[in-house]
């Protein structure tokens, strides 16, 4: 059957075609600047692969812009954005495109070898990544959104499609599991160093 020609694409690129998106460009730019970094961090830590996170970032914003859902409040838009991202991560995990074990090998971009303190912090981060890799996807999502990102239980529920009342016990169990994997018996020692 007939395919779209390059000439047609060029014609469309000159804004003759008006495709409806969820927000105008200015509003999107502001929203993107507020959410992109945290979204990328979420995607990279959930997939364990920064390159997959790059692709999912674009896909997430595209689906957000094409969604026919009207969200007036910033918080709802943000929750919906993370809901899309979570579903994409889960779809990729089901198709085995992401390797949870790769989480343990994700290196922080820009980390430089430095003094002993920096090395200790890098080692602690490696421990966290290794432990997170052994958790279930939902446990990782809960812990990251609640503790790393500071989302409320209602926001987490909207992002993950869970009832707000179920977040607390699920989060508690996930935290206990992570603590056990980290071998955290109590606070103290080099954990106090920042």
């Amino acid at each position, binding site marked *: *059957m*007939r*395919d*779209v020609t390059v000439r*047609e*694409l060029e014609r*469309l*690129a000159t804004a003759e*075609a008006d*495709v409806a*998106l969820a927000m105008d*460009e200015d509003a*999107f*730019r502001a929203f*993107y*600047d507020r959410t*992109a*970094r*945290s979204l*990328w*961090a979420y995607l*990279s*830590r959930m997939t364990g692969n*920064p390159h997959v996170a*790059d692709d999912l*970032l*674009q896909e997430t*914003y*595209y689906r957000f*812009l*094409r969604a026919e859902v009207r969200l007036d409040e910033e918080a709802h838009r943000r929750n919906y954005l993370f809901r899309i991202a979570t579903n994409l991560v889960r779809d990729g995990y089901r198709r085995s495109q992401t390797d949870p074990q790769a989480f343990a090998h994700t290196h*922080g*971009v*820009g*980390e430089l070898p430095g003094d002993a303190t920096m090395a200790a*912090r890098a080692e*602690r*981060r490696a*421990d*966290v990544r290794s432990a997170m890799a052994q958790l279930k996807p939902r446990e990782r999502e809960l*812990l*990251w959104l609640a*503790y*790393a990102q*500071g989302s409320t239980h209602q926001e987490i529920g909207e992002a993950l499609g869970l009832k707000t009342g179920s977040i*607390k*016990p699920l989060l*508690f*169990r996930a*935290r206990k599991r*992570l*603590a056990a994997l*980290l071998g*955290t*018996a*109590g*606070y*103290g020692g080099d*954990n106090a160093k*920042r």
Partner: protein
Amino acid sequence: MRSVECPREDELLAALQRTRELEACPAELQEHVAACASCASLADVVLRLLDEHHVATAHAPVPSAGTVWFRAQMRARHEAAQAAARPIGIVQAIGIACAVGLLAGGITLLSTSVGPWLDWFGDLGLPSIELASLEGLAPATLTVLVAATMVVILAPVAIYLSSSSE
């Protein structure tokens, strides 16, 4: 299983989210953490994740907003163009199916006798009572019947092939 082991966990979590360092939390809260195993465990987990979050966001290699917006626009317009072209393909497929049906009907009409065709179907083991009923049909009626049958069979196939090729 209880969901909260210490009633001060929410307070501790809020303080750590705000300060990102236990040393920056109120002294009384720090003393509590030192004495409470549950809060100590929570503090360690939260601080590790906050550190990880800080590193991930500080060095996130995100493209510019303009780049993401432009790519989204281009993709949306491309998909819209493909969607606009899809009905043309479907109409073409139906047209081809109708043409084949008419051709089959025309062949039927031009054939001097339908008997040999019915004998061929009979060799396939079709019930004889159906063949006898066809023999009584007028040629024009038989032509329309054959043409309509071909369209009904071929049109969905053509539409499927047209849609799947995109």
